[in-house]
């Protein structure tokens, strides 16, 4: 079986951050905050976070904060809940949460909660259970989860539960592994996992594994490395990960590497990108692949980072 080409992936991630010319860079520009989270968390899992200049990163992140307390995807863009979480997560990686005015960030997020408990992405009002997870994860990291109406947030998430035990983006929306990760993660972080039918959902999730060992996100779809995170972390949170074949999944992820140039793609032989590189490495971490730092399935941050937030000082 192939091995994880750690050095190549580290080189790839560092090069992406510096790349000046690619079309991918241009397209990524408005969501560079997400890209930073994917790249830097992957580097940390690979044990190479110190390859990056902390001060430069922190300084750039702070430039992305707006009056409202929210963060944008890059300088010169509007704030959004998506980039607010990524910013907080990256600061947590570097143990620099103290640069934040926590109340300010919390206010931005609490203002995005709607009457029915759901969360909007920003002032334009798009609602999606992704944003419920983001709000809950972000405020949990900042140790002020109580600032939102947790009960209503939970009840909205539960209204998105489907007959197959899974969750969609809004009530009635098709169960999708990405949305399921968000809903299960949010329920985990609010102590509400008892509302999940773990056997029913566990079965739906384990059925995502296809013959190649990879995982898809919905019935009858193709496997994709990113589901190695979303399906896997969901299974772990509901204690059902033994229902898939872990070895075969490891092999699938390793087959998605570009061992020449570094990086991981959605499925074998496709083009790599930093998003799939992160999810591949994170998935391997959840599968206890040797040499990787452990990652927390709910916070999507290294376990030592999470421990540092909650158990020190």
């Amino acid at each position, binding site marked *: 079986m192939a091995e994880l080409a750690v050095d190549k992936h580290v080189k790839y991630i560092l090069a992406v951050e510096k790349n000046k010319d690619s079309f991918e860079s241009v397209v990524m520009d408005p969501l560079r905050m997400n890209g930073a989270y994917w790249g830097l968390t992957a580097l940390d899992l690979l044990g190479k976070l110190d390859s990056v*200049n902390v001060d430069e990163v922190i300084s*750039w992140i702070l430039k992305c904060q707006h009056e409202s307390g929210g963060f944008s995807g890059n300088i*010169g863009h509007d704030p959004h809940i998506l980039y607010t979480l990524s910013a907080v997560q990256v600061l947590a990686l570097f143990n620099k949460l103290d640069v934040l005015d926590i109340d300010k960030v919390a206010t931005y997020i609490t203002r995005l909660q709607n009457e029915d408990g759901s969360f909007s992405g920003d002032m334009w009002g798009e609602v999606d259970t992704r944003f419920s997870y983001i709000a809950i994860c972000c405020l949990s990291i900042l140790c002020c989860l109580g600032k939102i109406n947790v009960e209503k947030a939970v009840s909205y998430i539960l209204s998105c539960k489907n007959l197959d035990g899974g969750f969609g983006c809004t009530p*009635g929306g*098709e169960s999708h592994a990405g949305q399921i990760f968000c809903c299960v993660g949010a329920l985990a972080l609010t102590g509400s996992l008892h509302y999940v039918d773990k056997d029913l959902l566990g079965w739906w999730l*384990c059925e995502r594994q296809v013959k190649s*060992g990879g995982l898809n996100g*919905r*019935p*009858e779809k193709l496997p994709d490395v990113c589901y190695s995170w979303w399906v896997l972390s969901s299974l772990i949170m509901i204690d059902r990960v033994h229902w898939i074949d872990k070895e075969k999944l490891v092999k699938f992820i390793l087959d998605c590497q570009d061992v020449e140039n570094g990086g991981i793609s959605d499925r074998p032989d496709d083009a790599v990108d930093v998003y799939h590189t992160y999810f591949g490495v994170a998935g391997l971490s959840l599968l206890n692949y040797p040499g990787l730092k452990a990652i927390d399935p709910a916070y999507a941050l290294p376990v030592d980072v999470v421990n540092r937030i909650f158990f020190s000082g």
Partner: protein
Amino acid sequence: MDSREDDGGEPLSRMAEWRDVTPLPQDDGPNPVVPIAYKEEFRETMDYFRAIYKADERSPRALRLTRRAIHLNPGNYTVWHFRRLVLEALNADLDEELDFLQRIANSNSKNYQLWHHRRWVVDRLGANARAKELNLIKKILSIDAKNYHAWSHRQWVLQALGGWEDELDYCQQLLEEDIFNNSAWNQRYFVVTRSPYLGGLKAMRASEVRYTVEAILANPNNECPWRYLQGLYKDDIKALVNDPEISSVCLKPCHEFRDSVVALRTSDTDPLGPDLSMAICDILEHVDSLRASYWIWRKNKLSVAAV
């Protein structure tokens, strides 16, 4: 017809219309973490956009500029936001906006910004936009029948603006094209449970069971109708178990397991007895080895239930 959806790509610095504007270069700070070199046209468009955005100029030329910027990078959510501000300020023709979105929909069918912008536009147009919208979504789904954004948008349109009357037929049509389409099954459930014209789940149950059983018999290896069947009996599992139509479907030997199951069947007394079920779990532990642990657990659960 200009397929590029903008002024034709002429450099803005050479256009008389833009003479009064000083383009603003990207400010990455003194030590940019991630300096990016852009293609010239992109760079120029975004420099002008930044100037207009900073000045908060909500003019017709600003509207055209956002269209150009969207064409160059449809993932730039800040441009979409500003476009909405400009559309509002100009009280622009939103039907035209829908047409613009329609023209770029195919190449942006998985773009969150595009779908959210559409929703914003349609919300303002109200019920008059309904038919056009449901039609557009059908077009997108005809290319990719599982497009998650399209389905989510469709559900929103139905709930906000109505149009339920033909939806069950539409699900039917999609399932005829591909009985494995999980999105269409999900939509079917959505319609059956929420349509104001159908009477709700209990009223629809009998006809839906018949439809689902037919689908199962045609393709027993199709995950979707099996789960759908469970959903039809949500909160009433006893009724599912006692329905003779259902038990006959579950026991009908399907192609791969035919010999094994036939060999194992003793008689027709209590066909749902623990022995047959446990034997099936044993078989599945081997033929579905990816999920061996799951089948072992299922078998244990059965023996506990039998006690």
